[in-house]
C-alpha cells in the first residue's frame, strides 16, 4: 500500500505542516471574530439590546467556526501525534483554563437569552467575555512558550515528561505574545462588529478596534526585536533525513540567539509573512479610521495570516523545541505520522475541506446583512 503513495515522505510532511497552519489561520479568521466580539461585548455594547445585537452577529455561525479548533486538534493528533502528546500534556493547566473558557462559551450563548432577567444575562455576558478573551490570550502565551522552548524530555520509549509548571509559562516574552494574540483577535472582532451593526456599538468598536490594531503592530514589532536580540532560538546541528523515521531522538540541536531569524536570510521570500502582518494592521487601522469596514476586515484578516505565518516560519523546521533536552525537540522531519496516514488524511482533506469552505461560505452569504434589534425581534430562536 505504501508503494502506491505518489508523494515522498518529505513532501507529505511539508504539506501537513502547511495544512496545520491553514487550520490554525482558518480558526483565527472565523472563530477569532467570535472570540474578539466576546471580549469586546461588555465594553462595546452597554445595554441588553445592544448586547443581543452583537451576540446575534455571531449567533448563526459560531458553532461552525468553533469546529476549526476541534478539527485543528484532531488534525494535529492524526498528523503529528508526538506534538499532540507533548504539547497538550505539558500545557496541562493552561489547557484546563482554555477548556473551561470553551465550555462556558457555547453554554453562555444558549443559556443567556432563555431567561429575561438582567442579572442572569449579565452573568453570561461576563462568561462570554472570559470565553473570548482567555483562550485568545492563552493561545498566544502558548505560542510564545513554543518560541522559547518548553522544558520537556523524552525517554528512550519516547514517553514525554514535563519539568515545568503553569506559572513558569507566564514569562514576559510569552505574555507579550499573549497580548499580541489578544489584540489581533480583538481588532478582528471589532471589524466584524463594524461591518454587521449600526449606531453606538459600531462607533465604540471603531475606537477599540483602532487601538487594538495599533497595539498588535507595536507588539509584533517589539516581539520581532526580542526574538532577534534577546531570545535563543534553536537549530538542528546534525544532518536530518527529511524522510527519516518519526523518532525525535535521532538528531542534535543547538541554541543560539537570533537562530529563529536564520530562515529569513536563507529564504528571503518568507519575509513577506511579517510584512503582511504589519501591512494588515495598518490597513485595519486605516479602514476603521475612514469607516471602511470591509477594508478593515481585509486588514485584520491579512494581519492574522501574516502574524501566524511568521510564527510558523520562524520556528521551521521546529514544531516544539525542548529547552530541557534540546535533542528531543520535535521537528517537521521527525514528529509526524506514518506516510500512509499522512497520505490518506491528505486525500480525505483534499476532498472534504473545499466542500466545508464552500458550504460555510454559503451559510455566511445566507446570513449576510446588518443585524439590528428589529431583525432579532423577528426570530424567536435569536439569542
Amino acid at each position, binding site marked *: 500500500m505504501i508503494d502506491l503513495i505518489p508523494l515522498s515522505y518529505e513532501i507529505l510532511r511539508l504539506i501537513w505542516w502547511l495544512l496545520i497552519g491553514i487550520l490554525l489561520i482558518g480558526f483565527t479568521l472565523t472563530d477569532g471574530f467570535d472570540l474578539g466580539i466576546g471580549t469586546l461585548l461588555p465594553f462595546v455594547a452597554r445595554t441588553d439590546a445592544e448586547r443581543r445585537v452583537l451576540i446575534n452577529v455571531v449567533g448563526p455561525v459560531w458553532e461552525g467556526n468553533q469546529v476549526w479548533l476541534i478539527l485543528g486538534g484532531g488534525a494535529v493528533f492524526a498528523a503529528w501525534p508526538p506534538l499532540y502528546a507533548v504539547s*497538550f500534556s505539558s500545557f496541562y493547566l493552561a489547557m484546563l483554563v482554555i477548556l473551561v473558557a470553551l465550555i462556558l462559551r457555547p453554554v453562555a450563548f444558549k443559556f443567556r437569552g432563555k431567561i429575561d432577567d438582567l442579572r442572569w444575562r449579565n452573568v453570561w455576558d461576563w462568561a462570554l467575555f472570559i470565553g473570548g478573551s482567555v483562550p485568545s490570550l492563552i493561545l498566544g502565551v502558548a505560542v510564545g512558550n513554543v518560541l522559547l522552548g518548553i522544558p520537556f524530555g523524552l525517554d528512550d520509549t*519516547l514517553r514525554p515528561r514535563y519539568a515545568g509548571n503553569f506559572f513558569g509559562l507566564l514569562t514576559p516574552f510569552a505574555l507579550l505574545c499573549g497580548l499580541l494574540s489578544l489584540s489581533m483577535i480583538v481588532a478582528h472582532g471589532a471589524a466584524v462588529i463594524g461591518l454587521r451593526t449600526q449606531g453606538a456599538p459600531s462607533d465604540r468598536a471603531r475606537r477599540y478596534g483602532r487601538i487594538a490594531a495599533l497595539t498588535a503592530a507595536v507588539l509584533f514589532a517589539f516581539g520581532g526585536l526580542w526574538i532577534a536580540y534577546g531570545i535563543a532560538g534553536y537549530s538542528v546541528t546534525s544532518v536530518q533525513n527529511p524522510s527519516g523515521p518519526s523518532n525525535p531522538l535521532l538528531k542534535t540541536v543547538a541554541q543560539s540567539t537570533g537562530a529563529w531569524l536564520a530562515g529569513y536570510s536563507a529564504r528571503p521570500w518568507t519575509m513577506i509573512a511579517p510584512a503582511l502582518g504589519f501591512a494588515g494592521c495598518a490597513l485595519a487601522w486605516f479602514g476603521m479610521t475612514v469607516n471602511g469596514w470591509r477594508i478593515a476586515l481585509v486588514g485584520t484578516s491579512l494581519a492574522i495570516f501574516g502574524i501566524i505565518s511568521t510564527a510558523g516560519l520562524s520556528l521551521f523546521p521546529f514544531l516544539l523545541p525542548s529547552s530541557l533536552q534540546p535533542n528531543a525537540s520535535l521537528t517537521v522531519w521527525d514528529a509526524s505520522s506514518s506516510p500512509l*496516514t499522512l497520505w490518506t488524511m491528505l486525500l480525505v482533506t483534499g476532498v472534504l475541506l473545499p466542500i466545508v469552505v464552500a458550504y460555510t461560505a454559503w451559510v455566511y452569504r445566507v446570513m449576510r446583512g446588518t443585524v439590528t434589534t428589529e431583525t432579532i425581534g423577528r426570530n424567536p430562536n435569536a439569542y
Partner: protein
Amino acid sequence: MIDFTVVDLSRLQFAATAMYHFLFVPLTIGLSFLMAIMESVYVMTGREVWRRMTLFWGICFGINFAMGVATGIVMEFQFGTNWAYYSHYVGDVFGAPLAIEGLMAFFLEATFIGLFFFGWDRLSKVSHLAVTWLVAIGANFSALWILIANGWMQNPVGSIFNPQTMRMEVVDFVAVLFSPVAQAKFVHTVSAGYVTGAMFIMSISAYYMLRGRHLDIARRSMAVAASFGLASALSVVVLGDESGYVTTEHQKMKLAAMEAMWHTEPAPAGFMAFAIPNVEKRENSFQIEIPYALGLIATRSLTQEVPGILPLVDHAKTRIRNGITAYESLQALRANPQDETARKTFNTTWPDLGYSLLLKRYRDDVAKATDADIEKAAFDTVPNVPVLFWSFRVMVGIGFYLIAFFALCFWLASRHTLGNNRMVLWIALLSLPLPWVAIELGWLVAEYGRQPWVIEGVLPTFYAASGLTLVDLAISLGVFLAIYTVLAIIELILMIRVIKKGPADRSVLEDMTGAPYASAAAPADANR
C-alpha cells in the same frame, strides 16, 4: 515510575467526562432525526403545526447540542492532556477517524445548526428542510467516526508496531473502517440515540397530554415518536453489539465477565439470568441459568463454544510469556537495528508485546518477571465481574422493557387511543430516564469491561497516561466536576422552563416569517 494514583484519577476524569458527554449526545442524535422527519411532513403537507413541532423540539435540541459541543471538546483534548503516551503510541491510527469526524461530520452539523435556527425567514421551505437533514446526517456521521475510533480500541486491526518509532502504525485503513466491532457499535449506539430522542418526545408529550396543553403538537409528536421509537428499540436489541464480542480475545473475556462465566461451557452455553459472582473464590455463590440462550446470542450458533474466564486467563499467561520474548527482541533490535535474529523473533511475536507491558505494573524490567508476576498480570486481564454482570443485565432489561413500551404505544397510537389512556401517559412520563440509564451502563460494560486495556491487547491503560502530578489532577478533576455539576443543574432548570413554557404560539410564527399564518390546514388547538 508510573504514579498509579495519577492514573486512577485520570481514568476517573475521563470516565466522568465521557459519561457526562453522553448524557447529551444520544438525545441530539435522536432528536435531529425526529426534527428532520417532522419538518419533512411539514414541507410535504404544508400543515403549519408540523413546523411548530420542529421548532419546539429544535429548542430542546439546541440546549443539549451546546452541552454536547462543550464537553466534546474536553473529550478530544483529554487524549493529549491526560493520555500523552496513548496519543504517541496510537495517534497514527486513532487520530485519523477523529480528524475525519471533524471534517466530514461535525463541521456539517455545527455549520448548519446555525442556519436551522436562524434561516427560517431566509431560506425556502425546501432549502430549510435540506439544512435540517444535513444537521441530522452530520450528527449520525459524527457517531460513525467516533465509533470507528472506539471500535479500534476494542479490536485493533489493520496496524503493526514499528520499532523505529516505538508506536503502532496503520497498514490497512480499510480494515480499521470496516472492523466488525466498529460497525456493530455504530448501529447499536445510534439506535440507542434514536430511542432516547423518541423517549424524550414521548415523555414530554405525555406530560402535555396529562396537563391538557398543546394537544395538537403532543398528539402528533407521540405518533411519530411511537413508531420511530419502536423501530429503534428493536434495532438496539436485535443489532446489539454483542455480536462483535466473539471476534477477539479480550472481547471474549468481556463476554465471559458479563456472564460471570468462570469455566468454559459446552456449546451452546446457557445465559446466566441471575448470579452472585464471588471474585475472591473465582466462582458464583449462586446462579440461575437459561439453557442455550448465551450460545445463541453470542455465537449465533448451537455448536460454537463460549470460553470462560479461567481458561482465558491461562491463555493470557501464554501470551504474556510470548510477549516477554517480543519485548526482549525489541530491546535487542533497538540496540542494534541490523540484528536479523532479533528482527525475525520480533516479527513473529510482536502481537503479544502489549501483554508484556502488563508486567510493568509489577516490574520495570519486564525481562526479569517472575512466575508470580506473570500470574498477577494474567489475572489483571479479568475485568470487574460483578459490575459488568449487573450493568449488562440492567441494560438488557431496560432494552426489552422499551421494546414492549414502544410496541404498546404504537398499537394504541394506531388505534388513536394513546392520548386518552392516562395510565400509559404516566408510564411514558416516568420512563423518561430509562434510555439514559441503559446507555450509561452500556458504555460502562464496553469501556470498563475493556480494562486493563486502553487498546485491547496492545496498550495497558496505566501505561498510557501522561506523567502529570497529583496536584495537576486534583485541580483539573475538581474544576471539571464543579463545572459539570453546575452546568447540569442549570441545564435541567432551563429544560424544565422550556418544557413548561411549551411550543411557541402562532403569533410568534407570523412575526418570524413576516407572512400571514397558514391557518387553513391546521386544526384548532383544543386549549387555546
